[in-house]
């Protein structure tokens, strides 16, 4: 039962290489989905663009940085009021977005002066803000504006500011993923090592690949504080620009999102010899395992055990209450990629939930290796899924709940399938011990919802006929 050609894909049969149905006794190495390949036009793929991967996902998390998007206004508007990454300074990152408002004349004659002027205006408008990331978008990349040279000029004119630049037009790569890569590598090459931290603990680390969705980073920070571990930099949850310049001084890099941020962890190992420790900071038992590994690295095992015991005492009974009720629930996960492999086994172990279908927008082969290693037999593993495939998969696996984005959630609502926001959560945070209880609660309330039963009832009773549209 290797790769699957869905009915809706008969005219795009190349999709077969992207969809795996795991069956017993298979050597999964023979069936690794093709991934991170070009998108087929016109499919209603879920994928976004490289600029999104750089600005919206990673850079825009920072709480003290102007996000100057060099392009027409749409790319700025589109990445504003869409994320849930709070901060401890009043959510500056979610309140503002900046655009150079490219016009036709700049397409014809170049946009560098427009960028320079916009950068000065932005610093003038908010004199307390001294840091900026400049991103290119499709048209400013096509016309070849040299944003790095402009940034240098602005830094020369304003010695109190620091500016980083990212070349991330939406057409580069095939998905958001390229934007992660470009930002990661640019940052370590240009900014890491340009500022020294004050070391306040014998134990120091960076937490890499966590973007503080609904306060995840801030929840995990309570653990690091209790353990006496200094986090030099969070990449990039609730983070600051300058903290990220100090990453070279950490003793350990703890990685959750290996997809978006493994690049910089690898380079920090290569360039500064800092070991990379991959953990899962979602999942109740996974979290305990991660804390044990971190504490073993620093030689503070007893502290770790004490924290784990406290957290288990606080949250495990609630978790088990949900497990009792969620056991056997059929779940689908249609998100970016990593949450597939972070969640499939953790919801199975901690909540008794069976993940029956998974789709990754932009995962690479290594993400599929991970998820197929951890995932169940009889489950569909889909790369770059599209909308018609989702409908067909629903018919095949009949999920009780789908973890996906809100738009798809609204779509499957018509089929009486509840959703939980797998990207930005319903009522998070979802990381850590407490967070997984939050996830369980939202899943339970999604599934055990009176409205779903009410929706199924046809009040016409036996006389039911197909719904007639108003004008017909």
């Amino acid at each position, binding site marked *: 039962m290797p790769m699957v050609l869905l009915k*809706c894909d008969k*005219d*795009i049969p190349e999709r077969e290489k992207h969809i795996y149905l795991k069956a017993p006794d298979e050597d999964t190495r023979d069936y690794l989905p093709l991934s991170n390949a*070009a*998108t*087929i*036009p*016109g*499919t*209603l*793929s879920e994928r*976004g*663009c490289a600029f*999104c991967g750089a600005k919206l996902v990673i850079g825009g998390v920072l709480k003290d940085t102007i996000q*100057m998007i060099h*392009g*027409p*206004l*749409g790319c*700025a*508007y*589109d*990445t504003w*009021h*869409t994320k849930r990454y709070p901060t401890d300074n009043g959510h500056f990152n979610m309140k*503002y*977005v*900046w*655009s*150079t*408002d*490219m*016009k*036709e004349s700049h*397409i014809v004659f170049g946009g560098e002066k*427009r960028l320079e002027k*916009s950068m000065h*205006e*932005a610093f003038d*408008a908010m004199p307390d803000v001294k840091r900026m990331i400049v991103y290119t978008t*499709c048209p400013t990349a*096509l016309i070849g504006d040299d944003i790095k040279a402009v940034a240098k000029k602005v830094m020369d004119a304003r010695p109190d500011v620091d500016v980083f630049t990212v070349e991330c*037009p*939406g*057409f*580069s*790569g095939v998905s958001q993923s390229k934007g992660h890569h470009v930002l990661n590598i640019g940052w370590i090459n240009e900014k890491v090592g340009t500022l020294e931290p004050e070391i306040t603990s014998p134990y120091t680390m960076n937490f890499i690949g966590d973007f503080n969705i609904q306060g995840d980073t801030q929840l995990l920070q309570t653990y690091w504080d209790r353990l006496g571990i200094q986090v030099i930099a969070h990449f990039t949850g609730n983070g600051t620009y300058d903290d990220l310049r100090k990453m070279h001084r950490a003793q350990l890099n703890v990685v959750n999102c290996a997809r978006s941020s493994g690049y910089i962890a690898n380079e920090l190992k290569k360039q500064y010899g800092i070991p990379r420790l991959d953990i899962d900071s979602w999942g109740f038992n996974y979290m305990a395992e991660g804390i044990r590994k971190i504490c073993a690295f620093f030689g503070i095992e007893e502290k770790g055990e004490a924290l784990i015991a406290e957290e288990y005492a606080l949250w495990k009974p609630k978790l088990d209450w949900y497990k009792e009720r969620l056991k056997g629930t059929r779940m689908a996960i249609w998100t970016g990629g990593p949450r597939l492999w972070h969640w499939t086994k953790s919801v199975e172990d901690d909540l008794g939930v069976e993940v029956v279908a998974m789709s990754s927008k932009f995962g690479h082969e290594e993400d599929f290796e991970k998820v197929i290693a951890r995932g169940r037999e009889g489950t569909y593993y889909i790369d770059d899924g599209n909308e018609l495939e989702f409908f067909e998969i629903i018919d095949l696996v009949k999920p009780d709940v789908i973890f996906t*984005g*809100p*738009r798809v959630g*609204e*779509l499957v609502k*018509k*089929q009486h399938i509840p959703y939980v926001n797998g990207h930005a959560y319903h009522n998070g945070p979802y990381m850590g011990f407490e967070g997984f209880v939050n996830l369980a609660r939202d899943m339970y309330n999604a599934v055990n919802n009176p409205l779903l039963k009410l*929706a199924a*009832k*046809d009040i016409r009773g036996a006389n039911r006929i*197909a*719904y007639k549209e*108003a004008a017909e």
Partner: protein
Amino acid sequence: MSCEITSKDRAGIINPMFDCQPAGAQYAGIGVKDSIPLVHGGQGCSMFVRLLFAQHFKENFDIASTSLHEESAVFGGNKRMEEGVQVLVNRYPELRVIPIITTCSTEVIGDDVEGTINVLNRWLKENHPDRKVHLVPVHTPSFKGSHVSGYDECVKAMVKTMSKTKAKPNGKLNVFPGWVNPGDVALLKSYLKDMGVDATVFMDTEDFDSPMLPDKTNHTHGRTTVEDFQGAPNAVGSIALARYEGASAAEYLRDEFEVPAIVSPTPYGIKNTDDMLEAISRLTGKEIPDSLVRERGIALDALQDLAHMFFADKKVALFGHPDLVIGLAQFCREVQLKPVLLLLGDDNNKYKKDPRILELKNSVEHDMEIVCNADLWDLERRIRDKEVELDLIMGHSKGRYIAIDNNIPMVRVGFPTFDRAGLYRKPTIGYKGAMELGEAIANALFAHMEYNKNKEWILNTW
């Protein structure tokens, strides 16, 4: 007392009021039945916009991308367009309309949309001889205009592509309401029905607010059909309610097929609604029925309780689509609110000559500023620097933090209004809309009085 018309004095934007042209074109495209817009550009140009519609409507709308990647960005993307249309046509057997919407990338590289459509029309004839799929070229470079002009452009492009020939008169009225909510469309349709006018609404988005049904079928789609477009040249007339959103399509039908067209004041407030109904009456010969006299009276009755008691002399800032902002300013003056700051968020140089703006300019008896090409920083900065003191903000949800952080009550209007529930269902145009708006304003002020303990005890015997 003066009314000053200014422009944003910065080059860059901080907190844009609108999205780009392709977003507006996508909004026009989803209002048509059996239509999937194909956005020719990078994937974010469609994914983000699908999310935006989900924010406002809490629904999914189908929009496809040509998924422009690096190779086609360098060597041309015509093949991506071709493949995108073919994949859509092959996989969606009911599909009848594909607006092919350009973006900044594909306008810069100069892809040949019309040439590709010719190639595709031959392909359709060979491969799907029993189907007619209308491929609509929509040129919407995002380095011009805004989602407002992109909407206008796409409506016009669809009319041009599908409203081809004039046949015998069908007695219908073409209605171009502009970028309004399903609740507005529903109200408009009820007015037309009450008047006995047979009308086609471009676009009829009433079913964007779609049910969750026992049979699990999905009805979230536009109701305007290919046949509606084909019938547009045979109409008795066209009425366009928004000068910047669909009026150019009505004007095209007038110039090409001699369909009489009226660009009516956008029907926010009582007087504008009167004017609209009179215009409809003029075009169709139908009389305004008693039911609307009654609805008008109920609205006036409700607003009369609020105006001089709570609204008089209150200072209001308005932002959003130009037809909305101008219309709301007129409505505000009817109920004694003082619109002191109007923000119009794109580079359209026609605003300064808009007769409604000139009328405001000539008649206001308080200080008013109209900022063209504005962004939402223009609002925030004026409040911060105490250049303007406000009692109320009316605008869309992306301006919410300005109101929250400055402790100013805000009523959500226009697009998008994702931070309040159910607003897409409520009319804002017409008599009923004026009443609902007035009441929303009053209730926002009342809640504000309570939270701020500002004479909250006054809300007893008004």
